[in-house]
């Protein structure tokens, strides 16, 4: 196995730190930190009046989450995926166990629970699970792509992904389970599975969606909870939807539209400040940006996301090993999917699925997850740059 500077042990702490960050993709790290910093700022100005006794409540917590995430990012830089691949089934079992516990606890409590309470900490295992599933699937594909019939491989991988995704869906957390699906599709796609698989899978999904949303309810069988159906269909015509979801979407569009070209500024964003826009620090934080900073600000944010995803794609292309390429593909798909679906639901072209905006939305688990994913990608990038993509 080749050695490279990042893994040379020993030396002073300073030298270790220097070597830890040397050779990183500064575009990716820089843009991810820039978006995170902007996110912390927007959380601050958007939640100023939400808790009168503590205007900085969400801000201080999000700052802490981001710092924890950055620490985790730097630890991840040292994570050896090849070595870790020996424990792939252990990791998979832990993931199933974690999301399974949440499901059991959630069904004993009332309504939905996505967290495990550990003292003051609330962990959302399904979030970190996104990185784990990307890794698990990549390992499985790499190990079997030459030996297994391609159709059986696709089905096997889909089945492996479906177990945790199904549990997460039952929690119920439709959005996160969709992210699992996106990761799976991306890995299989980049692995070069035949296009027919994707066509077949797409057809099956469209049929299932039609069944679940329209055909079965008409026949009196409700697979999804009514609020989930509302959220999924509200974007088609939010004006006609008098439910809570339709209201959210309508207010989001009003917030974004009223921002105009240059925005109303943090103090003039009345949709946000006066609470007309719900979830303005989590799922609808993009609408806050658009209201406060207009098309200019929102466009710049999208441009930053473009930089993030562009660097992820470059890293994927330059990946040294197939495993790393596929992990990069899964994580890139995760980020890109989340960005597109979240902003898409803010602007009213995607269903409301409760997916947070990476690096922006308030919340500990996904902030940690996204920064860990960046760490993994940075390591893959560094190895790819230093060792070069391997030709077959």
């Amino acid at each position: 196995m080749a050695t490279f500077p990042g893994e040379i042990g020993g030396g002073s702490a300073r030298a270790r730190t220097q070597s830890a960050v040397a050779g990183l993709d500064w575009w990716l790290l820089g843009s991810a930190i820039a978006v995170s910093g902007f996110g912390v700022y927007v959380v601050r100005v958007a939640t100023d009046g939400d808790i009168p006794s503590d205007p900085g409540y969400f801000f201080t917590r999000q700052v802490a989450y981001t710092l924890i995430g950055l620490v985790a990012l730097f630890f991840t830089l040292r994570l050896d995926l090849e070595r870790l691949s020996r424990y792939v089934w252990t990791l998979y079992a832990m993931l199933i166990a974690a999301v399974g516990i949440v499901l059991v606890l959630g069904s004993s409590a009332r309504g939905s629970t996505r967290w495990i309470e550990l003292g003051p900490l609330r962990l959302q295992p399904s979030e970190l699970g996104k990185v784990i599933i990307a890794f698990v699937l990549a390992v499985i594909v790499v190990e079997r792509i030459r030996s297994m019939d391609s159709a059986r491989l696709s089905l096997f991988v889909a089945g492996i992904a479906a177990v945790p995704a199904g549990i997460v869906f039952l929690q119920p957390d439709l959005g996160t389970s969709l992210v699992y699906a996106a990761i799976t599709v991306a890995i299989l796609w980049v692995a070069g599975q035949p296009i027919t698989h994707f066509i077949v899978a797409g057809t099956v999904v469209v049929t299932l969606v039609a069944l679940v949303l329209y055909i079965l309810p008409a026949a009196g069988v409700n697979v999804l909870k009514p609020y989930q159906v509302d959220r999924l269909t509200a974007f088609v015509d939010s004006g006609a939807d008098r439910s809570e979801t339709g209201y959210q979407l309508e207010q989001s569009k009003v917030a974004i539209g009223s921002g105009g070209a240059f925005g109303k500024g943090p103090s003039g964003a009345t949709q946000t400040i006066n609470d007309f826009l719900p979830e303005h620090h989590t799922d609808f934080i993009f609408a806050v940006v658009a209201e406060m900073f207009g098309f200019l600000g929102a466009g710049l944010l999208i441009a930053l996301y473009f930089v993030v995803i562009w660097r992820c794609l470059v890293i994927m292309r330059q990946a040294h090993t197939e495993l790393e390429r596929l992990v990069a593909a899964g994580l890139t798909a995760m980020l890109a999917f989340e960005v597109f679906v979240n902003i898409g639901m803010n602007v009213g072209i995607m269903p409301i699925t409760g997916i947070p905006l990476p690096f922006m939305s308030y919340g500990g688990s996904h902030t940690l997850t996204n920064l860990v994913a960046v760490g993994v990608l940075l390591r893959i990038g560094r190895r790819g740059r230093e060792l070069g993509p391997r030709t077959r």
Partner: protein
Amino acid sequence: MSTTSPIPPDLPSGDEPGPPRRRIRRPPRPVLRMASFTMAVLLLLGVLVARLWFLQVIGGGDYQERAEANRLRTVITEAPRGAITDRNGAPLVTSREVLNLVAEPSQLTGTKGAGALRRLSVALGHPPGYFAAKVKKSGESRPFEAVVLEEDTTPELQAYVEERRAQLPGISLEAAYVRDYPEGTAAAHVLGYTGPIPAEKAEEYGSRGYLGNETVGRAGMEAEYEEYLRGIAGREQVEVDARGEVVGRGILSQTPPRPGQTLRLSIDVKVQKALEAALRDEVRGSGTSTGAAGVAIDPTTGAVLALASYPTYDPDVFQSGSPREVRRLLTSPARPLLDRAIGGEYPAASTFKAITATAAIESGLYKPGEIIESPGSVVLYKTRFKGFNETDHGKIGVSEALEVSSDTFFYEIGDRSYRVRGWPLQDWSRKFGLGRPTGLDTVEGESAGLVPDLAYKRRTCDRAVDPINCSWRPGDSINMSIGQGNVLVTPIQMAVAYAAIANGGTVVTPTLGRAVVDADGRVLRDLLSARAKRPLGISEQSLRLVRTGLRRAANGNGGTATPVFGGLPEQFRVEGKTGTAENPSGIDHAWYVGYAPADDPKILVAVVVERGGQGANSAAPVVCRAIGAYVGFSADTCGTGAKVN
């Protein structure tokens, strides 16, 4: 950095070249796959930017308006209506601030709202569904508007609601104004009442800047002078949050409420109350009367000093009464809402003789100084016309005829009027203002009365049964000469007609409103001076003869009302005329029209008492009491005149 080294050692074993398999895998083309991945990401981000452009740059204006509509609320502050006072500034109607119990339907949804309404209903002693029904009913006609559950709440209720604010979402106490009547029911018919804008007039009021739930004048002075009395509600624009609470910057713009202006009437509350009391006493005392009305005016200006109708009503019922009470007022057979002083039509009877006399002298039917035989009855056109009580008055002139109210004298005049060309009785009736509304400043309720003529006869006769009645016949003129037949007048018409005699020949327009004044009493608008006046066209000679007759009728030895007015001191000398209107359906209606002081008339009163019997006994005492209240003599002085044989 790319390496062209041989197969690295960490490749999975499956990648090693081995024997050819049955199925040849197409080699994956990772570059193409990754490129398509990149294209997809670029495309999706492009879609987002396009959508953002569409929302923010193209549709921005629309959404800005909607964001403004979200955050801006207009808070309406009611303005009090102006007060209405009498001529001396004594308040007749004022506005009082009260707290109404108001429900906001949008916040009263679901079980929580229903529970709040049920608790309130029970707490206030209503059936449990009382308020819920009220809210529902209001929602049908005016959705989204606040519903007034209870007006003019008591301090106990206010305390109850304040203490339970948390349990009563959507329920609040809101300031409003109600009409107060310091003099009770006094001048009820004049003042009128207020109420919500009627549904059929919503658009008309809306175009004048009214809000849907405003209170407007619906009758009487409240309606006639609405434009001055109306208070203009204040508007405050405030910024609110999603819960509807006022936030941060608070008031953004403000138009303060503008209270209505004060309306000063020409009514004198002292005279008004005296007239009302006298009418009430007379009706109740008669045992047969069904109602009465009177008008007191200043004969020189037409200013109405008092205007009363009995039975009367309490205008407060329209504001705070139950629907049943309102319905009872509207359907009562006694017709308390009818203002008999302006809307009641009665045969003028002998009070008409002053008009007949004027017409006779002015048109030459009667030569001053002429003496006419006036027996108990006369036969004209083979018909016997009886005088009142068939009293023989011998040979008398016109003044004596008025004094004793000789019917046969005026039959002769009526017959003469029939035999000349033209229509002297009709012409002079109209000159005196009969046959059409006087133009009193009131929105509605004034009747035209009736001056019968050939056109009237033709319009009302039945050609098939009684064709001869379709022409003007001698009997019509003869009956008309004593104010019978088809002559119909209202008390206000007789007041205006006699005012023209009292003031020396000017027909005035009676006027209730005197001035619009501001809070400090400064006159903003004179409502009285500009009122129309026209000359009657009566000669000095006619005037003297008629006034002599009227003076003798109230004071002379044979005067019909001498027992009532004969005892008054010289400075309060009354001139006037009795009338006893034949009532085909029962006891006669009693009339009196008189004014005082005779030398310089300050007040003129016309009174009719339905089924009151003889004018001298029933109506004249009422007139006497009203005049006394104004010029300053005791009611006891009335009725101290010498009895006529």
